[in-house]
């Protein structure tokens, strides 16, 4: 009897699998490339984390794309008007989920891919995009390897070899600090890479650096802050994900750390800035975009978010415009430019057209160099206002 039951269970599972398989097959056939409006459809893949450590950041980046899609839902390619459809797939932050999420996008016949927030998963997905010959536009993945080792990957943001030294220069020259303490998570290539470039540059400027790592899942950062204090560090540079950033701010506030906390682009998040409210800390971050940089864009997206409860939740509960959202918005229009230039929805044509794209986005001019990286030599530095819980613009920083 038991065996019979087990067999039935197996059969049921097999049947349900077959049913799902069949369903997805017929779904593809139905769509056939046109939408309700009668226009043909061009699909843009969104390869972003919605869950995991970078889930919050990924969601904000998607918001920018969704808003862009709302502003500009069609594109004219070679005389034909296409409806643009975003195909969003969750890559769950981690590299091991990258390949299947990327393959799922390929399955949905996308012409170009946008994403991802986080470099490790972008590298993992890049291999699949390369096999399929579909171009990808990295939005805020800053590790240089994403584009150097992958022919189809382009990127619209600055890279770590720029961001690290920019922060080092800011700390050494502007803040006048000669000892820095760096803190990175074990096993995170993003954290470790940025710390590496920061350390190299800071030492080259003449400073000393004390580096430490913390294991994944840490919650108590009090001892790390104490280590920074006893090392005599004037800044703590911790390019970690938003969750740990809040924990570090909390610990630094409680321990009365007197120097600055320096963060990278991941820190530019409203949860981070809100966690500084009422604390005696100084938090400075590098980022791609400063709210107020483009008044029309700011006003438009705020209105859209406030009319959209889901969007507001995904943004973390308020209408503050994150830099990654602005970058997502720019990435979408860069993709449209590439489609127009290619004159076709064929991924191969888009790939060929991408290096020649030039687009003036809300975060500045986007043009690609021979590796596929955006030509950017400036980052915005913002400081958290511990009274209002908003970012204050500090300076535009380059590498000196």
């Amino acid at each position, binding site marked *: 009897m038991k065996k019979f039951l087990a067999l039935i269970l197996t059969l049921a599972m097999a049947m349900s699998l077959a049913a799902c398989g069949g369903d997805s097959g017929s779904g593809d056939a139905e769509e056939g490339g046109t939408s309700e409006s009668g226009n043909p459809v061009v699909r843009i893949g969104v390869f972003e984390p919605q*869950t995991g450590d970078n889930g919050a950041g990924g969601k904000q980046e998607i918001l920018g794309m969704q808003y862009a899609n709302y502003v500009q839902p069609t594109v004219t390619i070679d005389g034909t008007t296409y409806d643009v459809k975003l195909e969003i797939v969750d890559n769950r932050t981690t590299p091991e989920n990258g390949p299947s999420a990327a393959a799922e996008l390929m399955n949905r016949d996308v012409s170009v891919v946008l994403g991802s927030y986080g470099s490790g998963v972008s590298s993992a997905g890049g291999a699949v995009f390369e096999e399929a010959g579909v171009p990808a536009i990295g939005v805020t993945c800053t590790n240089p390897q994403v584009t150097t080792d992958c022919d189809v990957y382009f990127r619209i943001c600055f890279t770590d070899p720029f961001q690290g030294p920019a922060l080092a220069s800011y700390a050494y020259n502007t803040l006048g600090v000669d000892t820095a303490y760096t803190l990175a998570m074990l096993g995170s290539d993003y954290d470790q890479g940025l710390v590496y470039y920061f350390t190299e540059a800071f030492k080259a400027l003449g400073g000393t650096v004390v580096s430490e790592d913390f294991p994944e899942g*840490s*919650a*108590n950062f009090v001892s*790390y802050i104490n280590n920074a204090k006893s090392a005599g560090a004037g800044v703590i540079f911790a390019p970690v994900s938003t969750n740990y950033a*809040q924990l570090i701010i*909390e610990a630094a506030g*409680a321990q009365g750390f007197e120097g600055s906390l320096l963060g990278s682009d991941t820190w530019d998040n409203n949860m981070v800035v809100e966690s500084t409210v009422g604390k005696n800390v100084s938090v400075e971050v590098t980022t791609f975009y400063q709210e107020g940089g483009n008044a029309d864009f700011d006003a438009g997206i705020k209105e859209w978010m406030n009319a959209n409860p889901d969007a507001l939740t995904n943004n973390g509960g308020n209408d503050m415009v994150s830099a990654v959202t602005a970058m997502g918005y720019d990435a979408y229009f860069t993709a449209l430019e590439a489609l127009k230039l290619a004159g076709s929805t064929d991924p191969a044509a888009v790939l060929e057209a991408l290096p020649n794209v030039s687009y003036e986005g809300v975060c500045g001019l986007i043009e690609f160099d021979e590796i596929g990286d955006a030509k950017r030599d400036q980052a915005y530095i913002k400081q958290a206002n511990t009274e209002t819980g908003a970012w204050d613009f500090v300076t535009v920083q380059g590498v000196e």
Partner: protein
Amino acid sequence: MQELFPYLLNGVSVGGQYALIAIGYTLVYGILRLINFAHGDVFMVAGLVMVYATTAMPMYLALPLVIAATVVLGFVIERAAYKPLRTAPRMSLMISAIGVSYLIQNLAFYITGGVPQPVTTPIPWISDDILVLGASTKRVTIVTPILTIALVVLLVYLIQKTKIGMAMRAAARDFETAQLMGVKINSVISMTFVIGSFLAAVGALLYFTNYPSVAITSGAMPGLKAFVAAVFGGIGSIPGAVVGAFVIGLCEEVIKGLGYTTFSDAFTFALLIVVLCVKPTGLFGEKVTDKV
């Protein structure tokens, strides 16, 4: 000494947090011989309930609700996932515990959308910053160990002096004989889970006062470490679990202070393996012989 003091202070605070979780492990293991893998997740759920409850209602309603919800959760887990397997091999029970842990984490993931939930309204008074001998910290750091020890004294009294305590001791010593003697074994086991969850809830209230957000994985590491503490102190022994927790909390922070931050977690596990191999009964544990 002055340099070491902040680390020790922090170590005591961390140790107190582990202690409250460790008691839950040690009680359950003492009676069921089960590593309750889900205990760390129960702790996490208590944190989540706290986040939601404190934003939705006044503090005097929210705190009892957190404790009640956690106790109910612990009770339900035992009834649904462990009771049906009472006669099954021990491996099945442990797999069920891992399954429950997986289920709780995934449900919490679904509800929170996989994003850490910020603690917007921390419990007043204990979340204030204070200065202790020149080292700044939150008041909860001082409150945690004191409250922990008070609760432990209460618990030891309960176990030594009351009838249900006697039944628990009997069940821990010999399950079947206790049953023959008329001990209602199911209610004793439920009671164990209720006490364990209660302490986990109190632990969560203190723990998440210290930190700005509750993530779905927040319970995993404290849970594992608390278990190590329970083994270190001698599993089944309540004072042992508490001593073990403080030792581990202190060691961990001192190791960080010495600069071996990479291995602060690994150290805890190394300690576990050494204890298991050298003195499996831990500091205060009694020798248990396996019945054939």
